[in-house]
């Protein structure tokens, strides 16, 4: 029961903290909603409000060219009272989604898949945090809190991904595919997680008595994913009417990146500077680059599919077309599952410092650029580069530590031996 009490304390404290922040600083949510670091064109709550306004007046929500999110969010938010005059119900809804995400993390951690899977067993199994600590790490992460208070719709994608993983590690492969379908429907890129996730499901299934055939297993689950996405698309079609308009306003918007509002990612500046004739080519290259990690990481870390998911989420947080701090917070949420790798990591302090520096300097330089007028776009872009650098160092270090862990498992004699880069 003691563990249960801790769980309740952490979840309760997280809820109360969010509630306090909303009630004590009533302007904070709106301030955060306007920040480019938190709200991108594809997850901004402001844009959702605009879409909602059009939707409740029976106009196509995509008419204004402002709203680019999935249409199924509209009836959901139409049920909630108006966020302008009654902000609390919407806020509490978001708090609850955050708690649900933490609950999913709890399940993932409890399964112990991060330290011991079918094909892999970490050397430092005993060095790990329990689920409540992992959930607390997620719930009290300032990035998560900022995302939650800003009511960014990324939290729904986050829950889709986390529930897909938590269902996969607990063996509910069908639910996992449905959740992944939901996440992909909302923001497209989670579909890249399909291969590692289906391998995770397969590994879990094979731990039982009779391992199923790999090929048919994958095909079945791919069909399931397609069916769930198709079902959601069908529902959306009922809501919006014009199928192609909605596809081009949402997925087209994700894929072709027409809105170059500054964000913490690497795309906007690059595509602003680009000559139009090269745009298509580099769009292809950038997307290919993003997608290519999936194959490489899956092949190399075949034995740890959950780690592939974690690493891919880190890659997405850096290389997505419209990243926000919510993507980084999702990556940070899964990192504590790999507590046993922390002793093997070498640059955590530098990565942490780079991330801290950029998260302070970013808003300062944005202020200089937009408000004070004494800086320019290069200031902010330089800081987004540092931010991405910090995340990349962290990601690369995690991958290094995972490789080292695999190597130590293969050669038990070399545990703790010094490596030198040649």
């Amino acid at each position, binding site marked *: 029961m003691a563990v249960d009490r801790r769980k309740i304390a952490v979840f309760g404290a997280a809820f109360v903290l969010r509630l306090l922040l909303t009630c004590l600083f009533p302007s904070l949510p709106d301030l955060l909603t306007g920040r480019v670091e938190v709200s991108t064109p594809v997850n901004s709550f402001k844009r959702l409000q605009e879409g909602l306004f059009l939707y409740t007046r029976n106009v196509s929500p995509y008419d204004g060219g402002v709203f680019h999110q999935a249409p199924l969010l509209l009836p959901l938010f139409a049920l909630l009272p108006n966020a302008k005059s009654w902000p609390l119900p919407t806020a509490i809804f978001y708090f609850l989604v955050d708690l649900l995400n933490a609950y999913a993390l709890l399940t993932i951690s409890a399964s112990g898949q991060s330290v011991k899977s079918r094909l892999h067993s970490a050397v430092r199994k005993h060095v790990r945090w329990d689920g409540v600590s992992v959930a607390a790490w997620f719930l009290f992460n300032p990035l998560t809190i900022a995302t939650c208070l800003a009511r960014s719709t990324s939290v729904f994608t986050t829950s889709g991904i986390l529930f897909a993983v938590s269902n996969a590690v607990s063996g509910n492969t069908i639910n996992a595919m449905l959740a992944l379908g939901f996440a992909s429907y909302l923001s497209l890129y989670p579909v890249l997680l399909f291969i590692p996730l289906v391998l995770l499901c397969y590994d879990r299934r094979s731990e039982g008595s009779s391992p199923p055939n790999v090929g048919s297993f994958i095909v079945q689950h791919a069909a399931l994913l397609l069916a769930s996405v198709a079902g959601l698309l069908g529902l959306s079609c009922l809501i919006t009417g014009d199928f192609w308009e909605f596809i081009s306003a949402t997925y087209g918007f994700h894929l072709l990146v027409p809105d170059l509002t500054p964000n913490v990612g690497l795309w906007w500046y690059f595509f602003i500077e680009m000559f139009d004739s090269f745009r298509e080519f580099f769009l292809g290259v950038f997307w290919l680059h993003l997608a290519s990690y999936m194959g490489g990481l899956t092949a190399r870390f075949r034995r740890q599919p959950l780690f592939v998911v974690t690493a891919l989420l880190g890659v997405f947080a850096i290389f997505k077309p419209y990243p926000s701090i919510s993507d980084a917070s999702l990556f940070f949420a899964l990192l504590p599952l790999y507590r046993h790798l922390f002793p093997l990591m070498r640059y955590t302090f530098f990565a942490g410092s780079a991330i801290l*520096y950029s998260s302070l300097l970013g808003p300062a330089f944005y202020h200089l650029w937009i408000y004070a007028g004494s800086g320019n776009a290069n200031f902010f872009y330089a800081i987004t580069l540092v931010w991405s650098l910090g995340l990349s160092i962290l990601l690369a270090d995690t991958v290094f530590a995972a490789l080292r862990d695999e190597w130590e498992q293969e050669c038990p004699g070399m545990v703790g031996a010094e490596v030198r880069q040649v």
Partner: protein
Amino acid sequence: MALKSAIRNLRNNPHFLFARLPNLLSFICVVVGVVWLLLLPLNEYSRQTYISENALLPGQVHAYFTGSEQNIFRGYKGELEGLLNDGQARGGQKDEAEVTAAVSDKLQSILQAAGLKIATQKYEYTSAGITHRGENTYAIIHAPRGDATEAIVLVAPWITADDKLNLNGVTLALTLARYFKRWSLWSKDIIFLITPDSKTGTQAWIDAYHDTHPASVQPLPLKSGALQGALVIEYPLDHRFQSLHIVYDGVNGQLPNLDLFNTAVAIAGGQMGIGADLQEMWGHDDSYEHRLQTMFRGMTKQGLGYATGAHSSFMPYHIDAITLQTKGEGWEDEMALGRTIESLCRSLNNLLEHLHQSFFFYLLMQSNRFVSIGTYLPSAMLIAGNFTIMAIALWMRTGYYPESKPSAKHKNEKASTEEKAKTNSIAERHLALPLSLVLGLHLLGLVPLWVFNNIFHQYFTITTYIFVVVDIILPLLLAAILSNGLGLSKPIIPQQYHLIKSFSLLLLGLSLSTLATLNFSLSFMIGLLCTPLSFVARLPGSAPFRLATSSLGLVLLKLVSPPTVLLGICWYMGISVEAVLTQAAFGWDVWGVWTQVVVWCVWWPAWLIGCVLLGSSMF
């Protein structure tokens, strides 16, 4: 060869690498940072000012404000003087509101007669238990050649920044309003703003102009386009003046575009033959000492971040503004000042776009010499960098260089590989306590921040003294709890002291380097005051020695604590603590000054942690 082997020896000496070298590097950073700043006034490092925006064309037009306008000036002045004397005869200072009403009516009728659209705005601010209220009067000349999308502001406060009656300045503004109205060449609207004082009036007006005013401030009934520049006229003397004093510092250390300053200097000096001074440096002889003194005065104002005049309130809205003050006894009259302002307005009228963005960061050391950000920024960054270097070194030290094993010194070449592996592996760090302590103390800074901005002004002095006492007790209490546990927690291990210091210095370096881009001077000053924190730590040695040294250290550290520094400055300048803190609270409430946040949430927690570390050697 010898050098090479010496370096190799040092590299293999972990004590040097982790304990000595960082101290050395940090110290070098601080010294270089300070020397860098001292070098800036030299000719090799500062530059001659120049006009970057060609459209300004300073002094290229003939100013026609002469002759008969002087009669108008005298007439207006006589009328206003009569009203002011009336009010004073009737009740002196007590009936100030009535005087303002009568005078305000007069102002309005004069401006209306000149053919301008007029409006008024009432406002009220309460800060530290003191209420400031007043009424702004303003009038707009609509540009005959413009489309009311851009405007220039001419401000004449009734009371100057030095608390003197600005009768000539207000009269001059009225005369100029009448005079400008007849010109057909304005392409920007011109707004004449008469405020009751230099502290609140412009702030209320500019906030309301951008619809960001608090409820106690009335909205503006009449508006124009985007404001391109603002000039404040201060002529509080009743005799002719000698030179113009140009005040340019804004709130929170923001500065107006250097081009505006340069234009003012070029017009005053080149066209009108009036000398221009800055930073109250009368008789600047362009020597190194005077340049340095000018720079330091500018840095002090920038660092403290308070409004230095009616123009300061414009800066947060990205509107370049300066105050022109008349100084000294000479032969220049109000007409010369009027012509200077006319010429400045003509220059601003020429502007086609915003002034260039690279000209907002500078340190001036003479009216025609400046240092640009690229040259001076490294000095504050080096000071901030010294903390980061120390933080990184301490982090590595906790991981790779175990304190308990002095074996590193007599490391044996024949040590077995296993032992070698052990020393190479990273020690586990216990992060929870250091992290929560550092974050908790930074959050604790919100308490003094709230207290010093919300209590009534008569309690400021006593609160400061209470706080001095708290600053003595709190570190010792925390140190005792940390070292002995006192039943509240487990006693702390040596590694955690290093981690506490590492995190604290990391945050300090982080905040200061961010701050250096926003307010260079504040970052530099706080960085310099915090320098000792890089070098204090829990002392080794026997108990009596530790007790003696750490007590001495604490007393010395106490000298650079926020409340002590405040008291010291107040004593040195001969001003009361209450006045300073009232002004600070006023700045926080009205101007939006955030120097206090830096003091209480960056400097004070870092200082506190330094004291805790030093104090822990007592127990």
